């Protein structure tokens, strides 16, 4: 598994800062495969698409 903000392995290093930042950011990396996702932010939400693992919304 990978950090969906920085794309590094979630088990390696401290991702506390990433988790805090994610409160005000959409994910950028697929947590399953580390691919950069296509992310569209709109005024009331966001959509993040991984070509392999599909769509996340928030």
């Amino acid at each position, binding site marked *: 598994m990978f950090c969906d903000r920085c794309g590094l392995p979630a088990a390696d290093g401290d991702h506390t800062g990433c988790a805090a930042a994610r409160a005000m950011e959409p994910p950028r990396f697929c947590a399953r495969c580390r691919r950069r996702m296509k992310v569209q932010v*709109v005024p*009331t939400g966001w959509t993040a698409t991984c070509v392999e693992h599909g769509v996340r919304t928030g």
Partner: protein
Amino acid sequence: MSDILDRARARVLDEGSGLAEADILEILRLPDEALPELLQLAHDVRMKWCGPEVEVEGIVSLKTGGCPEDCHFCSQSGLFASPVRAVWLDIPSLVEAARQTAATGASEFCIVAAVRGPDKRLMEQMRAGVAAIREAVDIQVAASLGMLSQEQVDDLVDMGVHRYNHNLETCRSYFPNVVTTHSWEERWETLRMVRESGMEVCCGGILGLGETVEQRAEFAAQLAELDPHEVPLNFLNPRPGTPLGDRPVVEGKDALRAIAAFRLAMPRTILRYAGGREITLGDLGTRDGLLGGINAVIVGNYLTTLGRPATADLELLADLKMPVKSLSATF
């Protein structure tokens, strides 16, 4: 009361004239102890020359990422190792975003694209998108598409775009430290054409790019010379992978001082909270800014980052007894 606040009260509050650069610098150098009095003066100026209403706006990115320019703060530049990928918003989603924005009571919806300037494809997408929004949603449409040719300015007017955003970002003397792929003067030229077209000019920038306090004063004075209808005030939100990704955020009191200083430089403009306020000021600082010169907000999310829920800002405005500017009041 300090001398500069006395002078500001006489010149800005009483006469409605903005402060000159040297006085703006004095404002920016006021000690923390003077901040409450400064914010009260800026608020009084805003109330006298703009009124209590707050203009609410939503923004959306029509074309995200892959920009050929190197604005050092921007995660959408294709020249940096940013995780932001290029993506286009389709027209139905654009209309839906406008509809959601209008549902908050907002009177403004700004369509933004990460480009040096629009190409034919983008202008065609704009024409279709603006027409679809105007047919389905009761909201004013603004645009931010980078540098324009005269023909593109004319096309946007023809589409019904009423306001054009093009930020100078920082003062003229610091700009080359922030952008090297185009000049401050090129941006100014687009703003000149926009003004002459009859569209409203929206022009602001970002504080915290590494500029000195003198350059912050220079920037406020240069914006005042431009005399824009609206000034969006951003605070740097350092983005991973950009050259400014490791810069510290602006300290809250400095941000509030800057808000008040920009209000005293431009007593009649729409001074809008834009990106970065959440991390720079937090909830309490957001309130202080609205009581210190701000009279417009971007609600909801930004282009690549998230904002406070629109409901949080609308509740705050209600609490402060600041009515949301209605669409009818914008004509």
